[in-house]
Structure formats: structure tokens, C-alpha cells
């Protein structure tokens, strides 16, 4: 029975990340429950030997800096989003031990749906929900868990049922769901309750380690500063008052019968997806693209017009064709909620180098299909860039003198071909001819792969040729 109870190795010896001179103490107020719970968690992680594969998620709230203290993997997440981030971490690394540590403002207010849905999916997470009945870090405002009649910064007359409703019982809500394995409400009050909390913490972590199950531990915890009490009064208030509204105890426990959740990472093979989505492998004809492989291409293209003009599909065709020439490509649409009408634009990048971001702020090429688009994007084009505009719809020429300007009466030409909607393909044909970075033959051959309605292939091919013809004549 020789034992030394000392600072756990799961804590850093010195909190180097903590700014300022004091790197040995936590940022918590004297008597705060966070420190006690931190110690219980750290002790369990050390005893179970899982420190190296633990990822601790710090929330927003007083425990936002938990990564100062825990010598584990750490992620600090946006307010209330710990269960969503935890889901991603756990699914990408099923063997990691993911701890979602959240306060009542974080979990029960802004993150209410995140936790309910993560619990409902039964993600293999351990959630520690620290309930102190107020927003502690911001100065003691009312939280969803504030007791009826409790005086806070924002309820100076006490929380009233008519105005603010009832305290939310998160453990009871989570316990009604089918997937959670173990849900208990505990408290950090007297010695006995702290030792009971220790047991609950260990049990919850065990469920994740052994069975990959979801567990939820609500910890009633004192906030002496926020409650304007001494630490001892605070613990007494937890024990005597909080427990009346938030009854302690196991709300759900199916750990005996729970068979466990698969620990393997679920990967979908690309071939399975291709089959379901009816996608063909992109064919790259080495012989035909040979004249283009040495080209240094770095085009950033902005295509803009009104909805229905084929602005987005113009971008898709350009990027799809880029792919067939072994370029790196990206396509990023931006449009309003209307299916027809409204404005739409898309950003396309075609590059011989890897693309870092699909965002195009200053295009090298602007394709303007209507007047508002030209007005909006003309100034952003890089000096020495290219502006292509539909001169049958736009009644002014661009004013920039440091760029190349190509007017194409695309809509008029499309009309002559018998379908106004084909104006976009006339521009594709013209642009490909003008830039010389792709083979017209490949574009004509593979346009059918890109179009959903195969009967329109001949018309599209005709439009591409017409656009190319137009460029040849003005060059």
C-alpha cells in the first residue's frame, strides 16, 4: 500500500504554452471544479496507458486553454463544435481516444444539436460536460442550465420560467437516445462525490477504450468566482442546491450488453463510387496531349453572368478538359438561391502546378456574359490579363487598357445555330483556340463525357467549332 499521489505525467511539467511568467499553475480561479476534473481525467489516462493516443478537445469557455496542461494530442475548437470535430478525429483515427470536454454554455446552448447528433450516432467519444449553471468565463451570465430564481449577470431578478424557461437537463435528454452507452450525472462537492466522479470518469473512458462506445458524464461543478462565493460555499451550493434541480445518478447504462462499435476505419473504394455515380475514368491520351505537356500554365479564370447562361457549365467543361490534358484543375461555383435568373459566377484554375486554393481573387482571364458581371469583375483582372465578353449582350467595352480584350457576340452566334443556351460553348471553342493550351480534337472528342444529355453533343461540337472559327478570323 505504498503509494505516491502526485501530479500526473499526463500534465506537462511546465505549462510552456501559457503566456506570462507563471507557467506552473493553471488559469483557473481558486476552488474551480475544472482543475479537479482535469486531475481525475489525467490520472485515468495515465493508469490506462493511453496518453499517447488521446486527443483532448478544448472547448470555448474557461477550459479553452486545456491544451496548456494536457500532454496529449490537443485540438481547440469553435464554440459548441467539439462533438462534430471529435467525430471527424475519431473516424479518421478509430484507435485514438477522443475526449470532448465542454461547459454548459458550450454544450447545452450553442452546441446543443452537435452533441445530440453525435450522441445519436453513438460516436466513440467520451464527453465530459461541466455544468456550473452559468457562463463562467464571460462573467457569469445566464446559461441554459441556470436554476430557476438564480441571480446571474443577465438575470438580476433571478431566472424566471415565463421569461427564460426551465433549466435544460442534458443528461436526461441524451439518455433518451438509443446509441449512448453510459450517461451519468455526478458532482464535485464533498470528498465522497469527488471519489464517485473519479469512478465515473474511469468507467466512461474504459467504454471508449474497450468498446468504442459513446459515454456522457455531466459534472456539476463549482464556479466560486461566478457565483460570488468562497470555494467552500461553492461546493456546498453544488451539493445542496444544484442537485435539487439536477438529480445525480446513472441515467443510462447499457455497458454490460453493448457489444461494441467496430474500430476499423471505413473507407470507400473509388471504384465503388464510380459505379454508383456512373463516372468513367478520365482518359488521358498521352500521344494527343504530347504537344501540351511542357507548357507552363497558370490560368485563374473567373466566369460570370446570369443564371441559366451556362456560366457554371462553361467552368466545368474548361476544368474537365484541363483534367484530360493532365493539368491540375479546380472549379468553385458561387450562385444565388434561384435556379434560373439571378447572378452566378464560378472560379476555375488550370495549372501545371498543384493548386493550393480554388479561390480566384484576381483572374488572369475574365469571361463576362452580362453587363453587371463586367462592371463587377473588370477592375480585378491582373494587368496583362484577358477579358472575353459577350458583345451581343454587353453594350460597353471594357475601359481597361492594360489587358487584352476580346468581344465575342456569343449569344447572337448561338441564336444563329438555333439554341441561345449554347453561347457558353462558343466561348469555350474560342478560348481554347486562343490560349493554345489544349487540343481542340480532345475537347470535341470528349465533350460527350461531360454532357448529361447526349443528344446535344453534335450541337455543342458545332458551337465549339464556330467559336474557334471566330477567333481564327479576328487573330
Amino acid at each position: 500500500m505504498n503509494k505516491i499521489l502526485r501530479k500526473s505525467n499526463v500534465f506537462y511539467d511546465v505549462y510552456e504554452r501559457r503566456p506570462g511568467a507563471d507557467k506552473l499553475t493553471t488559469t483557473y480561479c481558486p476552488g474551480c471544479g475544472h482543475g479537479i476534473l482535469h486531475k481525475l481525467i489525467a490520472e485515468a489516462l495515465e493508469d490506462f496507458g493511453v496518453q499517447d493516443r488521446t486527443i483532448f478537445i478544448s472547448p470555448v469557455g474557461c477550459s479553452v486553454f486545456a491544451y496548456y496542461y494536457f500532454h496529449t494530442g490537443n485540438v481547440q475548437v469553435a464554440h459548441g463544435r467539439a462533438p462534430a470535430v471529435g467525430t471527424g478525429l475519431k473516424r479518421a483515427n478509430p484507435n485514438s481516444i477522443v475526449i470532448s470536454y465542454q461547459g454548459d454554455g458550450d454544450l447545452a446552448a450553442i452546441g446543443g444539436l452537435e452533441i445530440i447528433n453525435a450522441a445519436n450516432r453513438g460516436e466513440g467519444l467520451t464527453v465530459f460536460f461541466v455544468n456550473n449553471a452559468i457562463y463562467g468565463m464571460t462573467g457569469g451570465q445566464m446559461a441554459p442550465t441556470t436554476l430557476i430564481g438564480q441571480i446571474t449577470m443577465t438575470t438580476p431578478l433571478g431566472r424566471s420560467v415565463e421569461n427564460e424557461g426551465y433549466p435544460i437537463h442534458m443528461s436526461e435528454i441524451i439518455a433518451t437516445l438509443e446509441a449512448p452507452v453510459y450517461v451519468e450525472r455526478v458532482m464535485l462537492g464533498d470528498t465522497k462525490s469527488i471519489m464517485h466522479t473519479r469512478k465515473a470518469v474511469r468507467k466512461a473512458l474504459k467504454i471508449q477504450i474497450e468498446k468504442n462506445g459513446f459515454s456522457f458524464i455531466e459534472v456539476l461543478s463549482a464556479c466560486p468566482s461566478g457565483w460570488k462565493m468562497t470555494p467552500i460555499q461553492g461546493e456546498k451550493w453544488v451539493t445542496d442546491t444544484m442537485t435539487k434541480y439536477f438529480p445525480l445518478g446513472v441515467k443510462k447504462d447499457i455497458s454490460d450488453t453493448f457489444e461494441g462499435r467496430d474500430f476499423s476505419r471505413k473507407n470507400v473504394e473509388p471504384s465503388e463510387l464510380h459505379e454508383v455515380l456512373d463516372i468513367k475514368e478520365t482518359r488521358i491520351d498521352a500521344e494527343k496531349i504530347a504537344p501540351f505537356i511542357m507548357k507552363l500554365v497558370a490560368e485563374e479564370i473567373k466566369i460570370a453572368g446570369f443564371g441559366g447562361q451556362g456560366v457554371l457549365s462553361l467552368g466545368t467543361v474548361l476544368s474537365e478538359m484541363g483534367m484530360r490534358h493532365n493539368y491540375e484543375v479546380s472549379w468553385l461555383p458561387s450562385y444565388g438561391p434561384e435556379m434560373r435568373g439571378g447572378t452566378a459566377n464560378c472560379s476555375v484554375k488550370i495549372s501545371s502546378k498543384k493548386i493550393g486554393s480554388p479561390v480566384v481573387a484576381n483572374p488572369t482571364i475574365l469571361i463576362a456574359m452580362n453587363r453587371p458581371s463586367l462592371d463587377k469583375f473588370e477592375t480585378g483582372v491582373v494587368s496583362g490579363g484577358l477579358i472575353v465578353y459577350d458583345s451581343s449582350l454587353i453594350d460597353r467595352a471594357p475601359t481597361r487598357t492594360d489587358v487584352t480584350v476580346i468581344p465575342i457576340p456569343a449569344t447572337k452566334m448561338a441564336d444563329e445555330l438555333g439554341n441561345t443556351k449554347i453561347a457558353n460553348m462558343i466561348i469555350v471553342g474560342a478560348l481554347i483556340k486562343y490560349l493554345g493550351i489544349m487540343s481542340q480534337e480532345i475537347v470535341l472528342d470528349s465533350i460527350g463525357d461531360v454532357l448529361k444529355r447526349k443528344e446535344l453533343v453534335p450541337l455543342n461540337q458545332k458551337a465549339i467549332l464556330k467559336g474557334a472559327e471566330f477567333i481564327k478570323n479576328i487573330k
Partner: protein
Amino acid sequence: MSEAASRGHVVINTEECKGCGLCIEACPPKVLYLSKKFNTHGYHNSAYKGEGCTGCGVCFYACPEPGAITVFKRWDLMTDIRMCPHCREKHKVYSKSTNPDELICTQCLKPINEG
């Protein structure tokens, strides 16, 4: 030589103590008290009366600071001082009651290898 064949010892790291008093409230044999002195943070830190600790560990779990309290269950405080290889100074040591040759420095709490 054992100074006091005690059931336990508690060491308060005064610089990590915030003086909340939860350990004092929780301590069953009431051997902790709030010091009259200030630590560098300006808190009256918790302190051990020097005898009567049972090594129960209740104060350790009551304390919110990870490193403020260390409890030695069934370790004896020795009267003689030893050279600590970690501190590079001579300090008092704790010896394990079941294996008196196992020693720990009272300052840095690291083991002292007698060999």
C-alpha cells in the same frame, strides 16, 4: 533513522497553491491549515502541520491544482539528510515503509538511488 513512523506525509508546493482552502476543509484528520504568509502570487497558501497525516489522499483529489499537493502513503520522513543527485544538494528524504532502502528526496520528490 525514521523521524516519525507515520502513516503518510503531505507536501504542499506553496508556489502552485491558490489558497482556496478546499484541502483544509476536506482533510479528515485536520492537519492542514492556511499559512499566515503569502506566496509570490499573493495567496495564503495551504500548509501541513508537520504531523498527523494519514496518507488518505483526500486532499490530493480535493485540490484543483495538478501539482500543488503530493501525498505519500506509508513513506517515512528520515532524520538524516542525503545528497540528492537531481537537486545536487543535501536534503531530507522519505523512505518506503515496506522497503526502507527506497528513498525519495523531500524537495524534488525524485528517487534517490543509494547504490
